């Protein structure tokens, strides 16, 4: 597929508390950065998709509250509640419908304004799970145990993900938590929820990302070479966590296979040159790698230790620092896409992988990876 391309990306710095900015302020900053990046003005934008979550924003119809800052006045604007990758997917389908030549996609959230555990608790079933106090961290800790039990992945291997990603973030001026740390320091950090230490968990963050997708006949008006969308797919698993094999991500495997098929990729482990995955927790990066076929089952931890996923490895993963170095939910997946765009353009500075032409980005929506959205992007049409 090469009917559409990403022609502009923009993001705010990811910070612990953007106390100076409301939601629309963040959106305004990211949208203008994306327009500048594309060499476009708001008049070049045919339609808008905003992405947000009402619980995180503490209001209903949160998406419409940022429509002015998204330049949506007198345009067709629609909304997605979920991760930014799903907003982008909707934006892409609007291009592919033929009705629009360009779509501006935004995704924002501010974790700093609420109590994260109460927000994520509210995502659980109110009858059976919410009452016993489940939240994202405790549910993911159980998934981590299930994955480690099945794959024999060790706590040291999980810690190594944290060391790599926080280390990578030192090259990313927009990252919240660039850090030079050791495996020992990760393992010595506070045990939050077995087996997850504090440094196995992503932080609470604020941030916004914006992206401009253009149809093939409109990419020529952009300032930079287009990054082509070669494949995009999403897939959902069962809602009840107890219905799933939590040690695997069957929905991600399906989504990835479909996206790779669209892109004509038959061996992702060798044909993908850079990946930005949804590492909300250390174990997730390893689990998602295996589920996507970017490495063999039960091998992610070993390959990580061998340096395969380092910036100078054969498949750099989260060279940007990933979500462990800053996790504005909702924006998180769109940021993964934007980071792949930066890599494929050769704009990643100290985090730049060597001459990548194909990259993959992944977004997650729902608890413990209920649904996944996978994007295969390429500098070559």
């Amino acid at each position, binding site marked *: 597929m090469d009917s559409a391309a990403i022609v502009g990306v923009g993001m705010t710095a990811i910070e612990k508390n953007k106390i100076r900015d409301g939601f629309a302020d963040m959106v305004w900053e990211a949208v203008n950065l994306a327009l500048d990046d594309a060499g476009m003005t708001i008049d070049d934008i045919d339609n808008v998709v905003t992405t947000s979550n009402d619980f995180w924003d503490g209001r209903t119809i949160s998406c419409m509250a940022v429509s002015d800052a998204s330049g949506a006045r007198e345009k067709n604007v629609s909304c997605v509640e979920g991760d930014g990758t799903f907003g982008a997917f909707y934006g892409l389908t609007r291009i592919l419908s033929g009705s629009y030549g360009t779509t501006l996609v935004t995704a924002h959230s501010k974790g700093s304004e609420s109590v994260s555990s109460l927000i994520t608790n509210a995502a659980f079933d109110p*009858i059976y799970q919410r009452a*016993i106090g*489940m939240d994202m961290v*405790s549910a993911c800790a159980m998934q981590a*145990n299930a994955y480690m039990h099945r794959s024999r992945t060790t706590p040291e291997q999980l810690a190594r993900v944290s060391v790599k990603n926080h280390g990578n973030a030192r090259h990313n001026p927009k990252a919240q938590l660039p850090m030079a740390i050791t495996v020992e320091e990760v393992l010595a950090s506070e045990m939050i929820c*077995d087996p997850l230490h504090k440094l196995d968990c992503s932080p609470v963050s604020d941030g916004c990302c914006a992206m401009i997708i253009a149809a093939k006949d409109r990419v020529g008006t952009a300032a930079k070479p287009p990054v082509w969308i070669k494949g995009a797919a999403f897939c959902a698993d069962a809602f009840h*966590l*107890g219905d799933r094999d939590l*040690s695997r991500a069957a929905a991600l495997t399906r989504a990835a296979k479909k996206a790779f098929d669209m892109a004509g990729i038959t061996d992702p482990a060798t044909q993908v040159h850079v990946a930005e995955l949804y590492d909300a927790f250390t174990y997730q990066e390893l689990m998602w790698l295996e589920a996507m076929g970017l490495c063999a089952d039960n091998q992610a931890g070993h390959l990580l230790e061998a340096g395969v996923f380092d910036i100078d490895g054969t498949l750099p993963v989260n060279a940007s620092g990933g979500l462990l170095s800053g996790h504005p939910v909702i924006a998180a997946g769109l940021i993964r896409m934007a980071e792949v765009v930066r890599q494929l353009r050769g704009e990643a500075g100290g985090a730049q992988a060597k001459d990548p032409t194909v990259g993959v980005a992944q977004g997650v929506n729902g608890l413990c990876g209920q649904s996944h959205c996978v994007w295969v992007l390429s500098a070559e049409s």
Partner: protein
Amino acid sequence: MSDTEHVIIESGAARQPFNYAVGLHGSRFLQELRDHRRFMAVKCPRCAKVYIPPRRVCGACFVEMDEFVEVGPQGTIGTFTILRYAFIDPETGVQKPVPYGYGFIRLDGADTLFQHYIDIQDESRVKIGARVEPVFADERKGTVKDIRCFRIID
């Protein structure tokens, strides 16, 4: 207030009361738990998968389910965690005492896992595959908390 101090508007003790319907399947489950200390699951007429908690639709087959079957009360830990960070109880708004255990439990006869607290008096016995039994509340009100927790019986 100095000129440089940020102005923050707080929600205060805002509440959004809801009345959640539990549905007919949920009613049966909670009534049996309250009145008979029994776990009722529901079986899919097509794939024969036994779901707990019971619900109307088998998502895999997209068919309705109405055949209730009793499962448990004993089961096996599918996965677990021990929560050690201060967590605000959404029901009370105050911090819960930590640590405490959570688990996904495969009740005997069920194909899906049921979430609840796991007693962690002896942490070394809390592991994947450990056998457990429910501890019921003395006064049962028809909520999931009619089960106090599951305890290890190995």
